[in-house]
């Protein structure tokens, strides 16, 4: 096959990979503060996309719809934290895994019944006519994905490093008890992390929706790959998820080219299981110390 076609396919896969990286980054945010992740995050992506679609249909312009969608995602994140995570954290149990799965299912069913089971196109002012860049076709839509993903990740990283609240966030992930002794409320920090994670997921939904269309199942494949990216990269490194996301996005497009489109999910799933076998804390993660 022509190399330029293969490069084209890898590049457009990599743009998609950035979306996986963004959702995986959302997992990292909550994992840092609470050692939990939302297993229903895919539904959060989907519900936020539906909500944004409704905003657009009600006549909201793009610049208003985006913050509206992010706010909705943040609120959903807060709801997940309150309903599924906080109790389990207080009891030091792992009930949160099951509870977040359950909330995801509830969200899925609600979307099915509120917005219907069909896929809807997602209008966007950004063009999808390709531009020719160094031998590869790139659409402004894809560029908007890259800008959005790297932009919000950069903003959050800046927040973590440059503001005291952000440093407090890192302090809680380093040592919850010690952070409490500095006057940093760990409960509020966990809430903040879930709100941020929800907003990040919502942005992922808004960015990806013009490409995939909006429907109840729009995120069910995406979320599996976001899980893979998070596990393969490790749940600590923001840089790691971007690298792994780009890699996986390209890889799965190749798999779908050579093996058939039904196999496009397989590489991510295999990578996840392999990563657990070979480097349980991820390529960019650190080993943990057992304590007695």
């Amino acid at each position, binding site marked *: 096959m022509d190399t330029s076609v293969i490069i084209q396919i890898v590049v457009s896969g990599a743009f998609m990979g950035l979306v996986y990286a963004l959702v995986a980054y959302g997992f990292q945010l909550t994992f840092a503060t609470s050692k939990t992740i939302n297993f229903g995050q895919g539904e959060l992506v989907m519900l936020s996309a539906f909500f944004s679609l409704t905003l657009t249909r009600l006549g909201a312009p793009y610049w208003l719809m985006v913050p509206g969608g992010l706010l909705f995602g943040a609120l959903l994140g807060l709801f997940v934290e309150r309903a599924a995570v906080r*109790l389990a954290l207080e009891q030091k149990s792992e*009930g949160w895994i099951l509870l977040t799965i359950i909330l995801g299912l509830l969200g899925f069913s609600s979307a099915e019944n509120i917005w219907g089971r069909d896929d809807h196109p997602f209008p966007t002012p950004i063009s999808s006519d390709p531009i020719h860049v160094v031998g590869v076709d790139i659409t402004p839509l894809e560029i908007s994905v890259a800008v959005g993903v790297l932009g919000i990740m950069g903003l959050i990283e800046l927040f973590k490093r440059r503001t005291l609240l952000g440093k407090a966030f890192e302090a809680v992930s380093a040592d919850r008890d010690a952070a409490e002794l500095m006057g940093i409320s760990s409960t509020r920090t966990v809430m903040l992390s879930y709100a941020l994670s929800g907003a990040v997921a919502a942005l992922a939904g808004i960015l990806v929706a013009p490409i995939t269309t909006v429907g109840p199942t729009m995120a069910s494949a995406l979320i599996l790959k976001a899980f893979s990216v998070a*596990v393969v990269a490790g749940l600590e490194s923001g840089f790691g998820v971007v690298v792994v996301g780009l890699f996986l996005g390209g890889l799965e497009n190749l798999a779908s080219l050579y093996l058939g489109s039904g196999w496009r999910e397989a590489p991510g799933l295999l990578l996840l*299981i392999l990563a657990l076998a070979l480097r349980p804390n991820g390529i960019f993660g650190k080993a943990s110390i057992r304590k*007695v």
Partner: protein
Amino acid sequence: MKRFLLIRGAELVAFLLLAAVPLAVTNPFALGLLTLLAIYGILLIGLDVTVGYLGQVNLAQAAFLGIGAYTAGLLVMKLGVGLLPSLAGAFLLCLVLGSLLALPALRLEGPQFALATLSFLALTTTVLNEWESLTKGAEGLQLNRPPLFDITLNAPGFYWLCLVLLALVWMGMRNLLSSQWGRAFEALRDSPIATDAMGVGTYRHKVIAFAFGSALGGLAGGLYAFNFQYLQPQSFVYELMVILLLGVVLGGRKSLWGACVGAALIVLLPNLLSNRNLFQIFSVIGLVVALGAGTRAWLKKSVRPFQVIAPVAAMGLLALGSFLVSNTEDWRKAIFALMLFAVVVGLPEGLMGWAAGALARLFRVAAAPLPPATDLDLVLPMQALSGHTLLELRDLKRHFGGVKAVDGVSITVRSGHIHGLIGPNGSGKSTAVNVISGLYAPTAGDILLDGKALPRGSLFSVAGAGIARTFQNLQLFGELTALDNVMVALRDTYRTPWPLVLLGLARKEEKQAQAAALALLQLVGLGDQALSKAKDLTYGAQRFLEIARALARKPRLLILDEPAAGLAHPDAVELVKIIKRVHGRGVTMILIEHHMDVVSELCDTVTVLDGGRIIAEGDPEIVKRDPKVVEAYLGAMAAEAPAVDTGASTAPAAA
């Protein structure tokens, strides 16, 4: 015996009743539901192994159901294999795949495990869909139920087959769970570190348990295939998995009865949803139950407000929905979600867990009497006091980041000695023994036992080499009885191969283990508290129990990590007596202690650590007067208070 008969009697009656149904009822629909009940029963018993006993969220069981179903179906259709061999094939393939998945997945816990199993489920669905040459993909696979030994099975016949298999699984599982295996499963959830340190390979047990549970999923899958005789990849997806979890959690974890009750619920649920009136009645009943249970818990103040409000809100939403929504089928997933949410938050022990508690209050049946204790010489043979070098540390180092917890320590421990290790808090004593016992790998240096290099960084391997330890922060199996705690650790006792264990042929061995464990409990003075749960023992008794448990390993070297920490005065005196008794049997010990007088009284040699290095070593009386020790340790800190009064020294009276 009475308790035994009561439980077995209930099981027998239940199975006989189920078996008799086809004789009275000929309705094919009802029979179909019962068949499905038996199949799901096997499936959920398998799932309960990981979800209940290992306490891990397992999202792969639906995949094993699918793999089992396709395996059995393809064996029959492509290779013409018979009914029982194809079921065995499904079982074995899932056993192998289960092990392969468990090997990586069970290295980590919690979310990572759930993610690995979720990936496996998705991968399985992909393969079933895409491997069209074999599975016919989304089109589905048509198959015929093969005869059983030339007998063509009709509906009741197949039902009886499923029921017999369920009964066999039930019996095997019960035998397994009441053997050392079941005890180990329980123990490793309470303290995986302690099971490793007691030579019960935590990881190995988890892998075996998961593989076995998956194999049961495969068996259920085979039956599923022969029941429906038509297979489609969409049947084995995430949604089914959530329903299966609903079954296990609602029925009650860690219970065979719970798994079967759960199976009954998930078989009936779709029918419940299709009848609106029935659904309304059930959701209102659910709301009333949630309100009632919530009010009771509220009054007893035993739970957090969230645990009362959330289930009521969920059930309220369900009840409200049942009247507002006409198309309940469309809302199926939301209904499952609300029910599951209410149960996980409000009734975490499930229906059978709750019922078992109520039944235990109704019928108080005495536990079976314990056998007389074995002679201690058999359990803990006298070891000769040879005085040769048993353990040798050469320039051992362990650093954590910039903190040099152990920084070049060389120690020789002689056989038959009690070797004291003292030093201020944080001087590196605990880190040193954590490195020896394999919890941490050393940063540098050698550890030799009898001149041979000791395994590094593996509690399990070090335990196998003959080193047992206790923990400064207790690592007991809190939910197990004192006797069971010791029985978990017993070495060279369980010899019956597992197939015989499944058949229930290990009872004699179990009695012997009880007798041996009892002897060790008596050695530490806990003979009369053998059947109390470890978490209910007094703090002192828990410390002694850890010593008894470590002794069950017949250790060549016993490491006691601050056994006197936090002990009240009489207990500390008792502790000294126990250590002397153990020493009397020739056990070599490393004793970490703060109290100089205890060390003086018990130890043959003592090593003083400070800042991760040795500052003195030798006979306790001489070390005590060593100017370096006096200056750096005893002098400056002015000798710790002897909260332990061994009779020799003067203790301060409390003012």
